[in-house]
C-alpha cells in the first residue's frame, strides 16, 4: 500500500510523456553535435558539452547539465504541483481522506512519489545521455578516462563514483522545487496554479542570481548551488559548495514541507 502513489504516478501517460520530453532535448543536442561536429565554444555552453565530441560517454553528464537549469525543474514542478491539487481537482482527494488516509501520511507519500520521479528522471537522462553519447558521438577513446577540470586524469573508478554522487546531488538539488510545488499544491485546488507558482519561484531565484544588488540574498537562493555538481569533476573534489547546496536544499525541504503540512492538516477540503 506504500506503492499506491507510485502506481498512480507511473501508471499515468502524462508522466511518461514528461520523461520522454526530458530526454528528447539532450538527444536532439547530441544529434546536432554529431551532425555538424561543432562543439560549443568552451565555457559558453552547458558544462562538459565542449568535451563530448572527444568522449561520447561524457554526454551522460552533459545531458544532465542541459536539462538541469530549466527542463528538469519544470517537469518536477508539474508533477509535484499536481500531487495534492490534482487529487483535489479530480475530487478524489476527499475520498482518499475518507478512506481514511491520514493527511500527514498522504503528504509524505506524495513527496515520496515526487522524489521517485526526480530520481527516475535524473537516472533516465544520465542513462539515455550515456547511450546516445556512445552511439552518436566520439566513441573512439574507450580508454574510460576523463580529464578533470583541474587537468588531471580521472580513472574509471573515479568517474564512476563521482558520477553516482553527481546524480544523487542533482536529485537533492531538485528537492527545494519539489517541496515548493508540493506546498503550493496544498494551497490551491488548481494543479496548474501550483506548478506555475513553483516555476515562478524557480525563475525568480535564477534571475536574482544574476543581479549583483541581490548578492546578500544569493547564498539563500534555491538555485544558487545547482551547478555545483561540476565541482565533483575537479581534482581534488571541491566539496564546500556541494555541502552548502545539500544543506540549503534540506532547509528548503524542511521549511516548505512543514508549511505544506501545517496548511494541509488544518485545511478544509471543499473540493
Amino acid at each position, binding site marked *: 500500500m506504500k506503492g499506491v502513489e507510485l502506481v498512480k504516478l507511473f501508471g499515468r501517460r502524462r508522466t511518461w510523456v514528461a520523461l520522454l520530453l526530458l530526454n528528447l532535448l539532450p538527444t536532439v543536442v547530441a544529434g546536432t553535435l554529431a551532425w555538424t561536429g561543432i562543439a560549443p565554444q568552451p*565555457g559558453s555552453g552547458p558544462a562538459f558539452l565542449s568535451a563530448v565530441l572527444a568522449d561520447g560517454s561524457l554526454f551522460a553528464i552533459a545531458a544532465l547539465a542541459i536539462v538541469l537549469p530549466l527542463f528538469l525543474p519544470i517537469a518536477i514542478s508539474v508533477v509535484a504541483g499536481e500531487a495534492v491539487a490534482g487529487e483535489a481537482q479530480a475530487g478524489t482527494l476527499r475520498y482518499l481522506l475518507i478512506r481514511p488516509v491520514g493527511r500527514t501520511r498522504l503528504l509524505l507519500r506524495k513527496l515520496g512519489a515526487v522524489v521517485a520521479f526526480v530520481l527516475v528522471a535524473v537516472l533516465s537522462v544520465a542513462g539515455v545521455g550515456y547511450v546516445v553519447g556512445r552511439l552518436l558521438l566520439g566513441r573512439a577513446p574507450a580508454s574510460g578516462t576523463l580529464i578533470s*577540470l583541474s587537468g*588531471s586524469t580521472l580513472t574509471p573508478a573515479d568517474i564512476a563514483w563521482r558520477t553516482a554522487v553527481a546524480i544523487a546531488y542533482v536529485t537533492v538539488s531538485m528537492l527545494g522545487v519539489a517541496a515548493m510545488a508540493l506546498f503550493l499544491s496544498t494551497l490551491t485546488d488548481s494543479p496548474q496554479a501550483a506548478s506555475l507558482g513553483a516555476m515562478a519561484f524557480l525563475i525568480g531565484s535564477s534571475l536574482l542570481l544574476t543581479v549583483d544588488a541581490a548578492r546578500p540574498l544569493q547564498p539563500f537562493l534555491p538555485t544558487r548551488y545547482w551547478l555545483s555538481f561540476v565541482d565533483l569533476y*575537479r581534482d581534488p573534489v*571541491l566539496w564546500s559548495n556541494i555541502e552548502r547546496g545539500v544543506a540549503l536544499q534540506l532547509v528548503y525541504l524542511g521549511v516548505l514541507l*512543514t508549511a505544506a503540512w501545517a496548511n494541509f492538516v*488544518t485545511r478544509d477540503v471543499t473540493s
Partner: protein
Amino acid sequence: MPLTAHPILRTAPSRLRIDDVSPARRPIGRLLTYVRRVRRSWRWGVLVALVAAFVALPFVLARLPVGSTGSDAAETLRRVEQSVDRPYSGYAETTGTLGLPVSDGLDTLASLLGGRTQQRVWWRSSTDWRADTITPTGEEGAHTTATARAVWDYEDNRAVVTEADLDGAVRLPRAADTLPPLLAARLLSEARPTQVSTLPAARVAGRAADGLRLRPGDPLSSIDRVDVWADRESGIPVRVDVYGRGATKAALSSTFLDFDDSAPSASTTLFTPPPGARVRYGQRFDLVRQIGRFPDRGLPSTVLGYPRAASPDGLEGIGRYGRGVTQFAVGALPGGSAASLRDQLLLARAAKKLPEGIALSVGPVGLLLTDPAVTGESWLLTGTLIPAALTRAATELRAANGAA
C-alpha cells in the same frame, strides 16, 4: 416534490427538538473547540519556529564567541610575519568594488578588481603551490614550482608553461595575489607595530581569528586602512579588507570560506599536462611587461620621496616606487598606445581633465596619463596615491627630465 419549492420555516431548533441535550455537553464542546484552535496554531508555530531557527543560524554561527587570547595587534602582526611560508590550503573569495574603465589587455585585472573571484589554494611552500581560479563550468589552475609556472586552462584545453616569476618582477596583478596570505604579506610588509591597532577577534571559515588594523598614516596614500584577521592557530592571514580614504565599503575584500592549516599533499600541487591538451611554452601576453620592455625614458631614482625599486628581470621601461600600502608605477607610453588609452579614459565618466593630463580615480587606485605637451612624454602613473600626489609626481617627472 422538491423541497426547494417550499419556503422553509425558520424556528429555533430547541422548540422542535424532541431529544433534550444535557446541559453538561456545551462547555465541553467549547473546550474542545478551544483545544482544536490551539492545535492548529501550534502547527503554524512549528513552521515559524523552524524558519526563525534557519534564518538565525548563520548569524548565531557568525557571532559564536571566539574567545580572546589577549594577543594585541603588535603580537598578531608578529605572528603574521612569522607565518610566512607556513603551509595551508583553502577556498577563498575575493570581492572587488573597483570598476576599471579600461579593457584592452586588462580585462582579467578589471574582473579581479571589480567582481567576485573564487579560488582554491594549496600552499606547500613559496616554491611549491597551486592556486585555481574557479568558474561555474571551468577552472584556471596555476601551479608554481621553484623553476616553472604552469597555468592550466580547462576551457581552452591548454597549458602554458613559463619560467617562475622573479621576486618583485614587473607584471600585472594576478588572482592569486589577492589570496589573503599573499595580499596581507604585501600590505603589511612595511607595517610597524605603532601603526597597528587591535580589532575584535572574529570567526573566519569557522575558525577563530585575531584582527588588526593598519593605518599607514601616509598623507600621499589613498589607502585609509587595512584590516587583517589572522588564524589564531597558525597566524596565517585569513581575511583582508582594504579601505580607500573616506570609504565605508572595502575596495577589496578577500576572505577564506574554507581553511585548513595542515600541509597539502605533494600530489595536489603536481601538474602534468593531460594527454590531448595543447601545451605552450613561453609568456602569456602581459600589458605591463610590454610597456616595461620599452627603454627607460628618464625615470628618476626617487619620486615623491619614494625610492625606485630594483627591477630583477631587466625591464627598464617601468619604474616601481613606494612603500607598504603606498605603491605606484610610472612608465612612458609610446604615442600610439597613449592616444588610444587617452581616448578610452575620456569615455570614462569619472575622468577629469587637468593641466597635467587626464586623471581618474577608481576607489583607492589612482591613474594619471600626462599630456606630452606639458611633461614631454606621455607618462602613465598609477597606484594607491591620492590625486594631488599623482599631479605632484607628474611635476617631479617633468622637472627631472627637464634637468636631464
